[in-house]
């Protein structure tokens, strides 16, 4: 699974892109965020306020209950501010 971090999520985690293999219990977006969060203080800080995050799975906006699986590209970012 490919993880992407944008804006201040990238700054706080110190990572822009990584390939990970979460355990089998990680079945949804919410599971994945919980798993990422316990990987270290930078991740815990970045994911402290789940409400402030947006998640895209394979470049589509996703909900907490949406499924994730091994081949997915999952991106974590703050609410967008373009235009």
């Amino acid at each position, binding site marked *: 699974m490919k993880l*992407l971090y*944008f*804006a*201040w999520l990238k*700054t706080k985690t110190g990572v822009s892109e990584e390939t990970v293999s979460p355990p089998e219990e990680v079945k949804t977006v919410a599971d994945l965020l919980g798993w990422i969060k316990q990987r270290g203080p930078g991740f815990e800080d970045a994911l402290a306020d789940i409400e402030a995050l947006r998640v*895209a799975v394979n*470049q589509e*906006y996703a909900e907490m209950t949406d499924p994730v699986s091994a081949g997915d590209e999952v*991106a974590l*970012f*703050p*609410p*967008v*501010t*373009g*235009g």
Partner: protein
Amino acid sequence: MIRVQREDFDLGEELRALSAGDHGIGGVASFVGLVRDMAGGEKVGAMMLEHYPGMTEKMLGRIEAEALERWPLNASLIIHRYGRLEPGDQIVLVATASPHREAALESCHFLIDWLKTKAPFWKLEDTPDGGQWVDARDSDGDAAARWIKQPTSE
């Protein structure tokens, strides 16, 4: 048409190209977003506009398709820049051409409102206190919400 690019664009040229040769077009509406030197009362120097390559194009394409479905448009254009931008620089252009004035104006307004809340861009502003990620504004969400179609009782 959508374009995501680092380079600047020639506004006059883009708008001319949009309606060129199509004499069924009665109106062209456009909106250009520019980098302001003030944000929340603080002086801003340059900014870095980050985006999510791939998803950006996908979302902009979908936003444009939605406008083409809702209004009778002969042509439409979204250009969004990324990278380092200075105050006064052009950030974004949305433009629509239609036989009808109202369709051009409304769809142009829709495109920029919708884009503001859906297209994956983030602004990092240089301020006297260092780089500041710009927060999303509630007013942008409200502006986009106006365009959500109400279910019709069919």
